[in-house]
């Protein structure tokens, strides 16, 4: 529950809004490095309500500039991409990556008009296969050094899709462990985990971390009421869902830890040998570019890996997505929910793919749900903390305070989401921090 004003503050991200001001203090992913070809087509990028184009000029320089030509406003997505600037196809105005107007060929030959102003241009840097954008004023902070950023090229897979809802609505699904039991469950998963636990009970083994043949964590629990813990950190907060295992509950508890990294990142548990990051980049007040970053910590991705992961997430290009990251499952087709699948098949939601399941429930609320109408419970603790943290930061930022994540350096590369079954005597804080290897 939020007041209407709080909900507005949380969800509106335009340049003149408190949350928009806060978001502009951080680096945000604009596109992937692979999206941009030197001298190739500029790519439309809408970020925080601003229409921009990203491009890599012929000489390899990367730029992010206002989409609309400063002359008469046509789209620079149509521009010729020259060695050092975009050239508008309408009248030949040339805009460099730093916003300088390099040429206005239709103006008088001795005109100095082009030297008198600059076009909108934002700072970009490339790291980890991502083109990061800083839409704020002044010097940007250090780039976020997520674990995947330090890996060799080819290890990280970027799955993306547009969520037709505001960024907070999208992100809140990633810090809501309780829904895992209900939205994402599958009969095959339940049977697999049950068999795992029965084998341990039969053979007298210990409830330690188990992985199936695809590396997925075997969950020795069916506890739909996790006990939650949230702990503020310099980067945001970390969050644990603690569950009773099906057996040996007097000796073990299962701890699933995720990290919220302000303003739009959630590090979640992944299979063995993988790191996972979910990113919820505000396109505008009503749309979010959702990134699912899956990093193989051991070896580069294969094409087959890409296909398997995109299929499981429900983000397979062609089948689930068009070329502009629009989902095929959407409100108009009820997210392709299959009632027969719900009754007789595997997925209890009747929706294919975990990301599609998340998108369905988040988009089904509408672009900005009226939060005065909801009824939260204590199982929503991380969502409640997230809203408070971001609202406090937005207000503080407007008052000149340094927001969370920027007050002191945090080494994000050591953070990993983890899902482990550990002895009861071991505190949950030992999970999901300072992970290596």
């Amino acid at each position, binding site marked *: 529950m939020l007041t209407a004003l709080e909900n507005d503050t949380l969800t509106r991200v335009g340049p003149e809004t408190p949350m928009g001001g806060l978001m502009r203090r951080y680096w945000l992913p604009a596109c992937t490095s692979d999206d941009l070809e030197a001298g190739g087509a500029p790519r439309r990028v809408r970020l925080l309500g601003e229409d921009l184009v990203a491009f890599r000029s012929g000489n390899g320089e990367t730029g992010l500039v206002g989409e609309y030509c400063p002359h008469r406003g046509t789209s620079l997505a149509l521009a010729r991409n020259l060695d050092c600037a975009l050239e508008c196809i309408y009248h030949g105005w040339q805009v460099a990556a730093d916003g300088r107007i390099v040429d206005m060929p239709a103006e008088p030959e001795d005109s100095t008009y082009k030297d008198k102003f600059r076009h909108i241009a934002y700072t970009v840097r490339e790291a980890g296969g991502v083109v990061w954008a800083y839409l704020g004023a002044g010097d940007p902070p250090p780039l976020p050094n997520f674990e995947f950023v330090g890996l060799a090229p080819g290890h990280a897979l970027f799955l993306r899709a547009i969520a037709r809802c505001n960024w907070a609505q999208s992100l809140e699904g990633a810090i809501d462990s309780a829904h895992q039991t209900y939205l994402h469950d599958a009969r095959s998963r339940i049977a697999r985990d049950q068999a795992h636990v029965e084998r341990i009970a039969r053979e007298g083994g210990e409830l330690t971390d188990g992985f199936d043949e695809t590396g997925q964590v075997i969950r020795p629990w069916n506890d739909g009421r996790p006990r939650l813990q949230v702990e503020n950190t310099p980067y945001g907060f970390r969050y644990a869902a603690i569950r009773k295992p099906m057996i040996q509950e007097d000796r073990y508890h299962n701890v699933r830890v995720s990290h919220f990294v302000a303003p739009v990142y959630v590090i979640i548990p992944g299979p063995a040998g993988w790191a996972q990051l979910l990113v919820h980049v505000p396109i505008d007040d009503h749309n979010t570019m959702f990134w699912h970053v899956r990093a193989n910590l051991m070896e580069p991705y294969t094409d087959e890996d890409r296909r398997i992961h995109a299929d499981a997430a429900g983000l397979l290009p062609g089948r689930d997505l068009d070329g502009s990251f629009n989902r095929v499952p959407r409100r108009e087709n009820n997210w392709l929910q299959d009632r027969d699948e719900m009754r007789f098949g595997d997925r209890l939601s009747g929706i294919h793919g975990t990301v599609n399941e998340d998108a369905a429930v988040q988009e089904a609320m509408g672009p900005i749900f009226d939060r*005065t109408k909801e009824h939260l419970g204590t199982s929503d603790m991380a969502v409640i903390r997230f809203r*408070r943290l971001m609202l406090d930061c937005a207000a503080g930022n407007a008052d000149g305070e340094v927001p969370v994540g920027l007050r002191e350096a945090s080494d994000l590369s050591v953070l990993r989401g983890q899902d482990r079954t550990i002895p009861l005597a071991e505190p949950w804080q030992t999970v999901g921090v300072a992970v290596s290897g």
Partner: protein
Amino acid sequence: MQAGAADAGLTVVVDATGAGVASLLDDATARLLEHEARGDHPTILSVPRPAYELIASIKSADLARGVPLIVLGLPLAAHDPA
């Protein structure tokens, strides 16, 4: 206990105040989970009167159709700040 008090069970009192409800809910959730960890079973959540009135205004449509004022699963009560 004042407005909204339904019975004499375990009352959780939250004193945090702010312009909205985000901070109040966060503080209340933390307190309720502390009680839960101790095996307690709170029956009422009491908040400062201005916060109570704010929540009552937010939930005025619920109240108009007879739905009691419930926050985080508990009936809401008001107390006057000391």
